[in-house]
């Protein structure tokens, strides 16, 4: 080897990041001790939801936006219903609002349990998947699947189907769930609450890399409730504004080196963290008693600045979701009437954000004179976290430099999975065409 050589150059590629929803890849370029380039690239093809929503009828929107993501369709339906209700000047009843929260609980349970047990825990215990982890940890995986199933059942009772519910509409529900169906679920919800507490104990015993990051934490915040379907947009850096101001404080940009749109704070373009860890930091006071206790017993200490703890945060939120679901089901004494608020379709504009399992999800719609959808804007959680994921990776790589390439790749993937990134939901993530000759670091050089 040449003696006067430059520091060794290494490139590490993960061509297809596994155990995430959607398709992404990672490209890292190292020059000796220096980290030259880190690209999390999303090669999920663009699907153009915002474009083809134009010209569609108002009632079609929640059905269509659900298809942005099969893992969290409820989040898309909830953000779009609320935003359109504002545009139309509809006030939903407190009962409808409560049942929507219940529906959302089902999605949190189903999505968080999928991530905890099948996608993320294997990283901590040294398996390549939940399926091979089940060989040695059958009981745990079965517990996770059973909890997930209850979440799906909840979505099914309220939404008609677990993936892409059909019973959700602007103004409420097409059909009220029966009191009997919901009450029948109570024993399973009670079992789920216990299983969720066991989950917190299980994941908090994992070994966590030491990785504190001074995040700006962004979530919704509501004075009385842990945020699901509404609240102010809140940041640990001092922001606390109604969702109507979201677009003055956050902006999406297309960075030249990247294949994706990044959401960043304005001014300053700083990245931030959304999702379970942000929610817990910002809103732990609004947890219900059992989930609060579970958080205390998990051994986590505020502020929560290590994103590897997000698996614990997710588990605490599963406890909360079961607890809240039980509370709401108990309060559901008589069938919802009307199941949806009648309305006239007219011109208007409205925006709303809800807390998808992966973080804040913002929608804005303008209804034209026709009166069809004239404009739609959707900022999915993965776009919100995308910049911070890369920033975390840069930082985390410093701890990994002495490892071999395969280990670096594996640990980087683990770091990315802290975010439970949902790459299909990033509707307008795109594929970048790069000149390979000029840019050897092109993510397309395969």
């Amino acid at each position, binding site marked *: 080897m040449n003696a006067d050589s430059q520091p060794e150059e290494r490139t590490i590629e993960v061509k297809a990041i*596994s155990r995430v929803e959607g398709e992404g890849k990672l490209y890292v370029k190292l020059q000796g001790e220096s980290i030259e380039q880190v690209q999390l690239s999303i090669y999920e*093809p663009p699907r*153009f939801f915002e474009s*083809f929503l134009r010209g569609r009828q108002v009632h079609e929107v929640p059905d269509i936006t659900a298809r942005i993501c099969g893992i969290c369709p409820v989040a898309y339906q909830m953000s779009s219903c609320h935003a359109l209700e504002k545009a139309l000047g509809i006030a939903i009843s407190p009962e409808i609002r409560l049942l929507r929260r219940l529906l959302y609980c089902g999605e949190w349970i189903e999505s968080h349990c999928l991530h905890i047990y099948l996608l993320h825990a294997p990283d901590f215990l040294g398996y390549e998947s939940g399926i091979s982890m089940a060989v040695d940890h059958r009981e745990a995986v079965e517990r996770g699947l059973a909890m997930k199933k209850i979440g799906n059942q909840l979505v099914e009772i309220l939404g008609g189907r677990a*993936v892409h519910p059909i019973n959700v509409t602007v103004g409420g529900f097409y059909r009220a769930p029966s009191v009997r169906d919901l009450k029948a679920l109570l024993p399973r919800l009670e079992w789920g609450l216990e299983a969720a507490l066991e989950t917190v104990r299980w994941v908090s015993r994992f070994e966590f890399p030491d990785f504190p990051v001074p995040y700006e934490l962004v979530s919704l915040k509501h004075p009385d409730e842990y945020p699901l379907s509404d609240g102010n947009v809140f940041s640990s850096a001092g922001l606390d504004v109604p969702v109507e101001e979201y677009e003055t404080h956050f902006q999406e940009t297309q960075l030249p080196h990247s294949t994706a749109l990044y959401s960043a704070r304005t001014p300053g373009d700083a990245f931030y963290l959304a999702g379970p860890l942000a929610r817990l930091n910002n809103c732990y006071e609004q947890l219900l008693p059992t989930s609060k206790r579970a958080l205390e017993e998990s051994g986590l200490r505020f502020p929560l600045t290590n994103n590897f703890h997000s698996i614990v945060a997710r588990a605490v939120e599963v406890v909360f979701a079961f607890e809240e679901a039980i509370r709401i089901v108990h309060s559901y004494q008589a069938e919802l009437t009307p199941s949806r608020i009648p309305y006239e379709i007219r011109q208007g504009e409205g925006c709303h954000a809800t807390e998808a399992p992966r973080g804040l999800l913002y929608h804005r719609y303008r209804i034209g004179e026709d009166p069809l959808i004239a404009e739609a804007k959707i900022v999915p959680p993965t776009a919100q976290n995308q910049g911070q994921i890369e920033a975390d990776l840069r930082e985390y790589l410093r701890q990994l430099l002495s490892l071999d390439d395969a280990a670096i790749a594996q640990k980087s993937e683990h770091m990315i999975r802290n975010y439970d990134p949902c790459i299909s939901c990033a509707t307008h993530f795109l594929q970048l*065409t790069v000149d390979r000759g000029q840019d050897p670091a092109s993510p397309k050089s395969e």
Partner: protein
Amino acid sequence: MAEKLRLAVFKFASCDGCQLSLLDCEDELLAIADAVEIAFFLEARSQQLAGPYDVGLVEGSITTEHDLARIQEVRKSCKTLVTIGACATTGGIQALRNWANVDEFIQQVYAHPEYIATLKTSTPASQHVKVDFELHGCPISKLQLVETLSALVRGKKPQTPSHSVCVECKKRGTVCVAVAQGIPCLGPLTQAGCGDLHMNRGAICPACNRECFGCFGPQEQVNGQSLMNHYQEQGAKPLHLVQLSRSFTGYAPPFRATSEALESGEEAP
């Protein structure tokens, strides 16, 4: 021990909902994992075993040059190729671009449209390669998925219904939303399968007081125009009927013909 069937799951442009249906088989998942070798399934495992595979499940539609080439590779590596869901069997909701100007779409969303590499169409796998079996639905029914996998393990042809959503409503005793409430419904044209057919829970939308919007795709032989004429006579606007038939499976030939005839103002003979 006999060799296990080697299964691979591939994703193209989609929402992940159909592959999620496999992970949503909470009661059967570990049994499936015991019965077949899940050799390639990016969403579920990091292990990536090379082909050839006995069965390939394809989710998602073809929307990029890269995927156009990849579906050929996928076909070559799989003995039996099964498309799962509306995206893979009909082009999916993203096929709405097929009636639009994609360049305009791109400009509406992106500051740097020149970076976008995408085809002008979203098409089903069967338009590009031979497909052995198609599972309909947006999303697929997990019961049908389990039935399909177990049939393939036994070397049999999977059985899925070929009758319409209407039949399911009658069986279930759902009052017809089209007749009773005058809501234009795609049930007469749509293939059954969205509910649990064995438990008498078929046809979930009309049971929730709303129209079927065709997410399980059209039946093979349907006369969409005559149904649309009927709804128009009852006062439905052509634009609304175009949109009804042009949603999650709108690019499937019978629905496509229906919406295009409506748009051009043609009367059915």
